[in-house]
């Protein structure tokens, strides 16, 4: 399929390009930027006038709920949601049911995804069997089945010896660990960030030390082993300071943040709105400011959606009993645009955190996987066409995800995807 995308505003953060340029696709790859290759005859021409032409988004955390949680969402519904959000590459956390600790499960997942023929899926393998934090998994077998790295999702490892051994084992083969710093004791029972607001609401709190102490442990162990570490869902200012220092020191460390945390703080919980029940919990103003500053200076490599579909039964409960999580695939781009607009960050810079940035994290973890995130000649043709000026209201009618639970429900957000291309095929189109 030869594709010519013309008259669009091409924004490619990887090459710092933001200009009116045409794009030429053939055999699933980008074959020309600005200039058509000699003798190029398109099968289809798309007029992208008034639209931005972006690399398909790379989302480092999206729960698609299969296997095991099909009543909340399915691969089918959530992958369509991804395309509607312009997300063409997704990394899946291993906390499915059963967890992704066996090659057979990973193979089945990839097979199901291939049948649907939508976005690229990159499963994370469980670091320990059953995510129990006791016995490490067959990391080599899992990598052969298609896992890009290893993770504990939201179940922290209590035994530091296991953590150390997992790092050593992973590093033996050059595998990366994607871990969320979370002290199991300090975070136990907490449903909101410790602070004045949690105290007012009478909610058990998670002190910030739950993140900083765990992060310190991870970095200390990593320093002695040398394993590549990607830190997931950092939520506090002190933790970001530690990441900044670790990067300065030259440790092989990257980190991401949830799109929700780029915008929201604990007081947004209001009168116990369970749509704001998230893991990690929303922190304070200073933490949000620190997240925004860290996004600009590159301490944070990627914004992810942290897509976690929760059904009505899971949310129609008192705040502390509600299931944490929010739908996010369709909001990742809009929330990035909203941040860029509010903070005055140029689009080519802001969009780096959802394209080249996360693609880089993925490439460092799994060099064999051809993640895109860029619009250079030879790159896989994963593209999305976006009306940057369109505004849409977040709600049941506009979301394709099976879950409509998000803290942004009812809000108007900028940016609407009009067309998504994966591997050179147009897989999603929506007229204005």
């Amino acid at each position, binding site marked *: 399929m030869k594709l010519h995308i013309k008259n669009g505003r091409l924004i490619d953060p990887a090459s710092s390009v933001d200009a009116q340029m045409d794009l030429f696709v053939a055999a699933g790859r980008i074959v020309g930027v600005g200039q058509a290759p000699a003798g190029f005859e398109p099968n289809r021409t798309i007029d992208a006038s008034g639209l931005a032409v972006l690399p398909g988004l790379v989302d480092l955390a999206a729960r698609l709920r299969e296997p095991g949680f099909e009543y909340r969402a399915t691969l089918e519904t959530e992958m369509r949601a991804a395309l509607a959000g312009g997300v063409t590459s997704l990394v899946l956390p291993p906390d499915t049911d059963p967890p992704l600790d066996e090659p057979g499960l990973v193979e089945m997942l990839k097979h199901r995804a291939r049948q649907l023929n939508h976005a690229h899926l990159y499963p994370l393998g469980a670091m320990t069997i059953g995510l129990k934090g006791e016995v490490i998994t067959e990391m080599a077998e899992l990598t052969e089945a298609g896992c890009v790295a290893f993770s504990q999702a939201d179940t922290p490892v209590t035994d530091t010896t296991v953590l150390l051994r997992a790092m050593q084992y992973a590093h033996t083969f050059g595998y990366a660990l994607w871990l969320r710093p979370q002290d199991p004791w300090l975070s136990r029972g907490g449903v909101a960030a*410790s*602070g*004045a*607001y*949690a*105290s*007012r*609401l*009478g*909610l058990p*709190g998670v002190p910030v030390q739950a993140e900083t102490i765990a992060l310190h442990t991870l970095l200390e162990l990593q320093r002695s082993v040398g394993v590549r570490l990607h830190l997931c869902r950092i939520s506090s200012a002190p933790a970001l300071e530690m990441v900044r220092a670790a990067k300065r020191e030259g440790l092989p460390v990257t980190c991401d943040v949830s799109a929700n945390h780029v915008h929201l703080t604990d007081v947004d919980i*209001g*009168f*116990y709105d*369970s749509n704001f029940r998230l893991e990690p919990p929303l922190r304070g103003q200073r933490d949000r400011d620190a997240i925004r500053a860290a996004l600009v200076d590159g301490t944070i490599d990627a914004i992810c959606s942290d897509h976690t579909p929760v059904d009505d*039964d899971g949310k*129609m*409960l*008192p*705040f*502390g*009993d509600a299931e944490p999580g929010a739908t996010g695939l369709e909001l990742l781009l809009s929330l990035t645009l909203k941040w860029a607009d509010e903070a005055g960050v140029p689009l080519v810079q802001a969009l780096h955190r959802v394209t080249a940035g996360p693609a880089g994290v993925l490439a460092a973890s799994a060099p064999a996987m051809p993640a895109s995130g860029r619009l250079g000649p030879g790159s896989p043709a994963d593209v999305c066409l976006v009306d940057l000026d369109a505004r849409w209201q977040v709600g049941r009618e506009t979301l394709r995800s099976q879950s409509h639970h998000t803290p942004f429900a009812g809000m108007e957000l900028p940016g609407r995807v009009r067309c998504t291309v994966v591997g050179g095929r147009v897989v999603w189109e929506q007229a204005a």
Partner: protein
Amino acid sequence: MHNPQLNRHGELTHLLSTEGLPRDIITHILDTAQTFVPLAERDLKKVPLLRGKSVFNLFFENSTRTRTTFEIAAQRLSADVFNLNINVSSTAKGESLLDTIANLSAMQADLFVVRHEASGAPYLIARHVAPHVHVINAGDGRHAHPTQALLDMYTIRHFKKDFSNLTVAIVGDILHSRVARSDIHALTTLGVPEVRAVGPLTLLPGGLEQMGVRVFTDMKAGLKDADVVIMLRLQNERMRGALLPSAHEYFKQYGLTREKLALAKPDAIVMHPGPMNRGVEIDSAVADGSQAVILDQVTFGIAVRMAVMSIVASAG
């Protein structure tokens, strides 16, 4: 942010928390309660204000005393009262909170009095009941116990008259106390200039200063020249493990004895939401002494709950 306790006309339609409760509404509740107090002395203790209305006491957490006072209050208002002990009913069978409410609403409930162990549960309920149905929070987790705070305010007003020159000390497990939180909001709203929280660091929540409270870990300093001392109950569970070493040590450091009470003003009153753990947070000599007004709190509690129910039921 829209205050879910008030309707479009600014009338109190639910009582969920003393936080964000306007001062004039608190005063209105206290004044109304005052008209109900003499009823207790009469032979005919009933008034017809809630005749024909159905009041459902939904207690997801055990409580005989609070439920009983609400029952008495509702009956004195001539309402039909139904008690539901939820732990032995449908919830044990897995029925969700909202399904329970929906089922009861279908039985024409006008007013729900709710006690639940999850902070915020009454807000969820209030969001899902029909417009003419009212919700009164009888205690949600560690968040709020507004009727207790209101009867505490009534008690203080009865004995001290003027809020504007008082020092009030709240002593004990503030961290887990919905009574403490509700008292703090009511006291600051009513203009009490000095509200103190006294306890060990393990039992003090963060952010108290932002609520307008002065924090003390030394009880002697915290009681000095206080006009009102509110002692909180220390639950047995807290006395094991990482929060506190023992009841014995707690009593020595934070229990109210005659010696410690002597540091407060000579006419200071001693309050307690009940039930008391004698010898743990309060000495019997003080609990039974002349400065304790604990039984008055119970009496006033009925009148205050009658006031709250009649006020919300009359909201348009």
